[in-house]
């Protein structure tokens, strides 16, 4: 079906500095991610397909052929804050305003520790804020996102194999007709529930706060951003 469970977590990294791009690329590769780097916010939007709209005549689009009809599947965007032209914050806003891509987590990086800047980005929907230089340990915070994508792919594959589905989505919220043992039924039900959860997340206009609380069971209190070692003294 094209949605291979072994497809890697794909990160789009945006930074105007060649040096920083090299660094973030290596960091991400070392964390087993597939990486695409671009040097500006506008190129990032082009890559996502936001600028010109999705071009089905593009040979590249045909070759990736993802189920969700995006030109290219991007699982996370990581961007520098300070860039000429479109800043990382502008890019964040554009992504969150787009219906097609608002669910892609966005991480902001900056060499400057400015609490007001950090809060602004998180409020706008950034998933994380990393202080440069970014380290391998920082990227571990992205693991939950990677696992979620991996699990989602695996579950969709399993659903396709075992129940009656169309386009990779269960057609009804009912127990599938399985004449196997109880053991199999028990396996199927949790998958369905989780899949529904994933679907609900994508279909509702819930904020990042809500989504996070559903997934991770943490408080929706945005006033406590999740990053380390940053003094938030005002």
């Amino acid at each position, binding site marked *: 079906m094209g949605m291979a469970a072994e497809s890697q977590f794909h990160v789009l990294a945006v930074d105007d500095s060649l*040096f920083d791009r090299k660094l973030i690329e290596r960091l991400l590769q070392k964390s087993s991610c597939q990486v695409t780097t671009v040097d500006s916010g506008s190129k990032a939007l082009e890559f996502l397909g936001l600028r010109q709209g999705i071009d089905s005549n593009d040979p590249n689009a045909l070759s990736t052929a993802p189920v969700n009809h995006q030109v290219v599947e991007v699982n996370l965007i990581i961007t520098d804050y*300070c860039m000429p032209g479109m800043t990382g914050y502008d890019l964040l806003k554009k992504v969150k305003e787009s219906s097609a891509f608002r669910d892609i987590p966005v991480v902001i990086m900056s060499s400057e520790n400015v609490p007001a800047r950090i809060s602004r980005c998180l409020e706008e929907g950034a998933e994380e804020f990393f202080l440069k230089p970014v380290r391998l340990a920082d990227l571990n915070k992205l693991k939950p996102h990677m696992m979620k994508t991996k699990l989602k792919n695996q579950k969709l594959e399993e659903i396709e194999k075992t129940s009656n589905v169309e386009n990779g989505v269960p057609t009804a919220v009912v127990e599938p007709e399985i004449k196997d043992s109880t053991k199999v039924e028990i396996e199927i039900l949790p998958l369905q529930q989780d899949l529904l959860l994933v679907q609900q997340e994508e279909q509702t206009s819930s904020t990042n706060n809500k989504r996070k609380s559903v997934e991770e069971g943490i408080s929706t209190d945005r006033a406590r951003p999740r990053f380390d070692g940053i003094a938030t003294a005002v």
Partner: protein
Amino acid sequence: MNTTVVAQLQRQFQDYIVSLYQQGFLDNQFSELRKLQDEGTPDFVSEVVFLFFDDCSKLINTMSTSLEQPDNVDFKQLDSGVHQLKGSSSSVGAKRVKNVCISFKECCDVQNREGCLRCLQQVDYEYKMLKTKLQELFNLEQQILQAGGTIPQVDIS
């Protein structure tokens, strides 16, 4: 493989890199960079380091131009250059260069041309010094590899 030669070279390498940390040329970020290098990317650190030195050279030239005319110093451009240099020196672990950049920024902020000139000179000196030191380090690495040995992982406590 002559194990004695390899052991000697490895010892030399270890001592040298530790001294660079102790003398403040390098900080922990450099060891983070070394962690990112592996058999698949054996030149990562040297690539990144030489990219940094290239950046230094270009930025120093630009900033020098900005500072040329006493009556017409483009402090905005200067600030941008220092910001970049501070960022990349920080990312590479070039501790002394980074520290000069901190002072440099302060001089920019108060538009102190004399101070900026001094800092520029110091940045130039520090990056060239570091370049020499790291070239020696990479040289030692090559010698170890050529002698059939492996480059030691060095833990900086």
